[in-house]
């Protein structure tokens, strides 16, 4: 029930439903249930598994309804095993859904896998689509043949992507000799070579160092802004999402639990802000009206307060009037903390 209510909430916020633009990705009650033979443990476990017909079901995606407007960049967030990758695999035509409807650029991916493949680009952070034994440039060349990319467009794209991702020196190197960061850049170029209108990024920054992560984020932002490519991004690194997405979709146990802007999530969930006060002289048990003392360490006190009820400016004045204050700052609730709270408590309050 809560799920249903939330979904409508999410949708009212989704621009696709306000502006009547056709959604480029549309799923309705999409489900994927994996059924497998139940495995037994114990000394004769393997043997009895062989003869048993007991099956167990695992709901990977349990009724996902969402739509993306053309040109959107949406963060698809959830803990491990929440159903993110399974959803992406259905949208890319790798997996056949158990039930429900889906359309990607007007096509049903699992029925029209090859046609759908021409519209989409995919980057799996954990898996490369480049040809392991071949130099990078030959992988690109193979993609040109696969997608039937006209020579002129191929040249133009190759030059642009090589420059954007700084790959000039890597083109002649066999893929297996590339570092993870280098390979990732190659994978991004490979996914973009045929000018896809939709790109699925499944944990593209996983395992990358800070510099490589930033380069990847920069690239994603540019592709979205310049080419108007629709992007669905799954990641565990919320810094990716904060940097790139305005809208996020939260999924847990195969269900969408939030769909809307990051700002709204912050407004509703991150009401508790922290006021950090460093005193000039030691103070015992400082008090501020309207704020609770959360912690006190040497001469620094942390007060938490509800920003919808208390005025931050008044609290600052109060503190500086009562005590001798050296420094005052605010801490915004961290997105990760907000999302963790939602997973633990459910999206019900506010």
């Amino acid at each position, binding site marked *: 029930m809560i799920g249903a209510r939330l979904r409508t909430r999410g949708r009212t916020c989704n621009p696709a439903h306000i502006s009547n633009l056709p959604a480029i990705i549309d799923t309705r009650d999409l489900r994927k*249930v*994996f*059924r*497998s*033979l139940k*495995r037994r443990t114990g000394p004769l476990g393997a043997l009895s598994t062989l003869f048993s017909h007991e*099956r167990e079901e695992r709901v990977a995606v349990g009724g996902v309804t969402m739509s993306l407007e053309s040109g959107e960049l949406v963060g698809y967030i959830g803990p491990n095993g929440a159903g993110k*990758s399974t959803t992406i*695999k259905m949208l*890319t*035509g*790798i*997996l*056949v859904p*158990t*039930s429900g409807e889906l359309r990607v650029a007007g096509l*049903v991916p*699992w*029925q*029209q*896998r*090859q*046609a759908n*493949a*021409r519209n*989409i680009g*995919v980057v*799996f952070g*954990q*898996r*490369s*689509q480049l*040809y392991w*034994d*071949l130099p990078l440039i*030959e992988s690109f*060349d*193979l993609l040109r*043949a*696969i*997608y*039937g990319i006209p020579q002129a467009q191929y040249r133009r794209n190759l030059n642009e992507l090589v420059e954007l991702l700084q790959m000039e020196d890597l083109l002649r190197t066999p893929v297996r000799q590339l570092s993870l960061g280098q390979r990732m850049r190659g994978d991004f170029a490979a996914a973009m070579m045929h000018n896809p209108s939709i790109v699925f990024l499944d944990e593209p920054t996983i395992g990358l160092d800070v510099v490589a992560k930033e380069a990847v984020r920069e690239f994603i932002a540019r592709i979205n802004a310049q080419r108007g490519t629709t992007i669905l991004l799954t990641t565990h690194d919320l810094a990716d999402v904060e940097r790139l997405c305005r809208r996020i979709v939260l999924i847990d146990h195969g269900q969408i639990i939030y769909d809307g802007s990051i700002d709204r999530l912050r407004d509703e969930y991150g009401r508790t802000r922290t006021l950090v006060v460093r005193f000039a002289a030691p103070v015992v048990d400082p008090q501020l009206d309207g704020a609770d003392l959360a912690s006190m360490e040497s001469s620094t006190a942390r007060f938490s307060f509800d920003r919808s009820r208390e005025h931050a400016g008044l609290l600052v004045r109060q503190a500086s009037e009562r005590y001798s204050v050296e420094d005052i700052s605010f801490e915004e609730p961290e997105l990760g903390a907000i999302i963790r709270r939602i997973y633990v408590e459910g999206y019900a309050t506010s």
Partner: protein
Amino acid sequence: MGLSSVEFTSKVMLRHDAGQLRERARELRSLMNLKPYIEFARKAFAREAVYRVEVLTKIGSLILRVYVLRSLWTALYARNAAPLNLPLHSMITYVTVAMLMSLILSVDGTWLLREKIREGTIETDLIKPISIPLYLFSDGFGQALLQAVLVIPSLLCALLLVHIDIPNGATFVIFMLSFTVGYCVNFLLNLLMNSVAFWTLDSTVAQMIVRWASELLSGAIIPLTFFPGIVGRVVTALPFAAIYSTPLLIYVGVIPASQWALAIAVQCIWLVLFAVLASMVWSAASRKIVIQGG
């Protein structure tokens, strides 16, 4: 891990069938565009050509085996084991040509499939607008082409050790035709075997059983005409015979010109049957795909 079929509501099922038909039609149209597949074959050829030592070893071991077989059959024939209608020179021709054929036929491009399913890398192929069976065929074909190049030096070396009958032009053309059909039957058989991995996630055992059966029953080692009575008729009727036996028996003249059409027709029946079976297996498999590790 065996996975039962995913259950569909009947509504979804009907739509699925209609969509499947449309997809088939589209696939057929996209087959007209062979460019990507030619490229796959070229890349496979180039990739295999790198292993030069392996190439030399292969020729060496082939020559050795030809020599051993010649000695063996010569000894057997001297003991008056000469069977039926195959004189010694035909027998030696048979085993030598079978050897050369095995250079090409032992290439299994579909072996890749097993790895891809087991490691889950098949998803990176599924996101591309290509037919996976056709991709495997072209990759295998590229490898086979390299092996075909090796046939020439192998043949020349073999000729130093053994005498081989050279058939007349017409027989050779029909042999090549029959060999081509046999090559495709062999591909489909391998494809079917490796597709078992969609269900079991591993197909090593199935692969081994079929490999043993096919080596013995395809006529790669001994002509099927040596099997007595009812056994002989059974093994000749099996699909394995279409791979080695039919082209070889055409080559050595056991199958006369009057029966060429029939022999090749039987091969083609197996080809069509396996193709239908493979396409059924693939359409079922696509619903079963479970990606490992993620």
